[in-house]
């Protein structure tokens, strides 16, 4: 009888309990040691946090967010947001040094972006050394929340535990978020203006994830305190850093094909380009065109062409000028709350 209690099984229970308690003892000892060194943990992590300033600054849209350094040469991981939607992204480091930052690339599915500043010898989080954590792990959240810290002031630090590791079900306004992967939900109140892009670490200062944007839980409508685990982001970050997302220099005609692809060939009509950076919204789709065949629709917003971020009508036209009309174009658009990817080919010329 499997459920029969025997002296042997009792010994096994005792033995396993002892092992477990020994293990727990180690864990709690480690915990006690961690708490003592919190000042040191903070001091080590602070230089790796960046304050990012960009677009916004009106109607409740803050013009700042947080970032974390991921290389000694000034690569900065942050969330992809309207703050970066400007040519003038400014980064302030822990010591007050200010840099103009370049947007290397962004992934709208993960809502992350990688910036680059022109610096060397910086303290940074080694992504390969990032760890993962289970519920109950004590964590610290470093960020530039509420824009409190400016200049050489320290970023803010909140403490808490990983409450759960679960899939993100959240929305911003009425829009579902594109990322639905695993996140750390924490009990620290990380969900504050400007905190997105900050670092979540354990009490030893080891990186766990990047603080997410201000989102509400789809089910309960409460503000979510969460971070995206590093392992969800590494592939994309590597790609961006490897140059796969890099926008090519625009003034090299030699790289341009003789006959480039045009919107006209695809049957796409964008909204009138009236601003410095008019977002590339589809105004109309010509019937029977490749775009119509691919079911692109008016009001779709073009995000990527051939995995390159296009932030304006001009940028889109520029990207197209590098694509030969005999090639297939990969297009990612946002429609309502969905990301849609389609492939377009210009009709073969007679």
């Amino acid at each position, binding site marked *: 009888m499997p459920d029969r209690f025997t002296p042997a099984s*009792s010994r096994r229970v005792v033995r396993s309990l002892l092992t*477990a308690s020994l293990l727990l003892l180690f864990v709690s000892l480690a915990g*006690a040691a961690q708490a003592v060194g919190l000042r040191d943990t903070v001091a080590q992590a602070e230089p790796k946090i960046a304050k990012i300033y960009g677009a916004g600054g009106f109607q409740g849209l803050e013009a700042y967010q947080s970032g974390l350094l991921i290389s000694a040469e000034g690569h900065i991981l942050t969330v992809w947001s309207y703050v970066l939607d400007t040519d003038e992204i400014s980064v302030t480091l822990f010591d007050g040094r200010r840099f103009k930052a370049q947007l290397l690339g962004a992934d709208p599915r993960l809502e992350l972006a990688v910036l680059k500043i022109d610096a060397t010898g910086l303290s940074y989080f080694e992504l390969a050394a990032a760890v993962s954590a289970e519920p109950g792990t004590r964590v610290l959240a470093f960020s530039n929340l509420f824009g*409190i810290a400016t200049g050489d002031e320290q970023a803010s630090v909140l403490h808490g535990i990983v409450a759960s590791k679960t899939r993100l079900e959240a929305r911003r306004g009425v829009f579902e978020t594109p990322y639905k992967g695993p996140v750390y939900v924490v009990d620290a109140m990380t969900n504050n203006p400007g905190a997105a892009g900050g670092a979540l670490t354990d009490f030893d200062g080891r990186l766990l994830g990047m603080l997410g944007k201000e989102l509400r839980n789809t089910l309960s409508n409460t503000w979510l305190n969460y971070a995206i685990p590093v392992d969800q982001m590494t592939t994309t970050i590597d790609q961006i850093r490897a140059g796969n997302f890099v926008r090519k220099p625009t003034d090299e005609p030699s790289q341009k094909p003789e006959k480039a692809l045009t919107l006209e060939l695809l049957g796409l009509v964008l909204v009138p380009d009236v601003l410095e950076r008019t977002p590339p919204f589809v105004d109309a789709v010509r019937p029977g065109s490749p775009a119509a065949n691919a079911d692109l629709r008016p009001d779709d917003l073009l995000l990527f062409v051939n995995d390159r971020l296009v932030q304006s009508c001009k940028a889109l036209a520029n990207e197209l000028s590098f694509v030969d009309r005999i090639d297939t174009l990969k297009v990612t658009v946002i429609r309502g709350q969905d990301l849609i990817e389609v492939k377009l080919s210009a009709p073969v010329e007679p």
Partner: protein
Amino acid sequence: MRYACAAMLILAIFATAARAEVDESVLRAEADRMAVIDRAQQAAVAIFAADGQGGGSGVVISPDGYALSNFHVTKGSGDAMKCGMADGRLYDAVIVGIDPVGDVALVKLLGRDDFPHAEMGDSDQVQVGDPAFAVGNPFLLATDFTPSVSYGIISGVHRYQYPAGTLLEYTDCLQTDASINPGNSGGPLFDGQGRLIGINGRGSFEKRGRVNVGVGYAISINQIKNFLGHLKAGRIVDHATLGARIATRPDGTVAVTDILDDSDAFRRGLRYGDEIVRFAGRSIRTVNTFKNVLGIFPKDWRIPLTYRHEGKTYDIAVRLEGLHSPEELVAKVQGRPPAPEMPDKPKQERPKQPKEVPEKDQPDDQPKRGPMHPGQAPPMPDNVKALFEARRGFANYYFNKIERARTWNRCVARGDFHESSGEWTLRGELAAGGEAQFRLSNSIAAITMPGGHLEAHIGDNLASVTDPPGSGGMLAALSLWRRLLVVGPDRFGNLEYLGTVPLVTSQDIVDRRAIMLLGHDRALAGAHASELCDAMSGTYGGVECRFIFDSKTGNLAALEMFRSPDDDPCELYFSDYAEIEGRVFPRQIECRYGDASYLTVKLSAIKLDKGGSE
């Protein structure tokens, strides 16, 4: 039965294992923490408005019941309030002094002289990551007066928070992730050892509604230490300004972009375009840091400032000016004085002061409770009434009289001169060489020096007495000194207790001595709070004067006489006190004006006539 036995055995094993698995050091740390919290929370106070509408938190800081809170808490509570403590008892309390700009209030609890009180910490030693806990009365939950405790860490230090509304400005404050909610306002923030490091008063709320978002701010206890003497004076305390505007330049340095030419900073040599290097011992690299330092000092204090002008570095002592004119501040807090009533007009009820709109970044207006007697504050209890005296410009004039009497009694115990109201003749050696003789009486002040003889008539207009030239009016200042010692502060005329000030001469700072003493990066704040001196200030004969008493002995240590607000005062420093005929008397007097010492005299012969002859 067998299963039950097995279950019990497993339970027993689990229980033993559970106890064994927690290391002794962890249990000890837990017990220590509970003991710290238990001790610290005894000093916390739940403040309830006397009319039952609103309230907040506070913390007792001395056994005789002085307690700190926020101005915005006591403003809603009135001059008399009820304070509940962890012992479950409710005490009457009365307002003592307020700092509307720094959002601090001092109240006094009545009924005991052995109140449990918080030990003051040193907020400049606090670092990010340190444990901290807030104790208070969030949402006015403490109906049995037992405070709530929220535990967290220090999230930021030396935070500058922009002014909200017309008065409030939080400088150099501590930021914590311990839950701060409406009602926590005015309550203590303790460090991990249970030492008081701040008064919770504000949070970043904005989008999330008025509840904790993990970002609370506490006024640093070191700032409050600087103001405590002024608060005990029953005053409405003002903060300071430099009289200059500061901005960050493109090269990252902080420089003067505007300066008032009648400010003390200008008189000390600070000019447009000069770079600010250090202020109160702290290196200045951002405008926020500058504002942080400026915000922790009361007006009139002299603070060391290092600046760079055309490549050369200068150390000066700047006398800080008030952020507001006295009447401006009083009007903002107490309203305009009522206009004299027109005799023929029917009496009109004055409109009520409009309620200040709560700032979006300011947590509390306090949570409201249903009124017991709507719109009607109960009469002040007799025991509170005995400790309250309303006077325009003061939060509670009663405490000013107490402090003034304490200071004077201490001084007069060393030497009582009220019978020496005749002519005073003082003779001595000048440090510069030669002999000097002073004659001081009710009507004249005279000096004979190697340079000649000068005599001034002491009448109603001391401002016109500028002799000797270049002294700033030393003869007038000496006559004020004699007057105070002879008639005392009650009969001096308009002399009130000012509060506490550091006794720093400009020379101390030029010598860099004070910078070494007060310096490091710990600023003036806190480090030497025990060395702050009692000061009285008032006007007589058309001049403003200030008397500063030595903190250790109680002797009069300095006198400053301001003939005009736009000019440097004449400063007299009294030292080398020794007993002469049963009374201590200074044997050295130095007169300073501006950045220079005018004279120093070592007295060798002192003759003080008894009164009645004039």
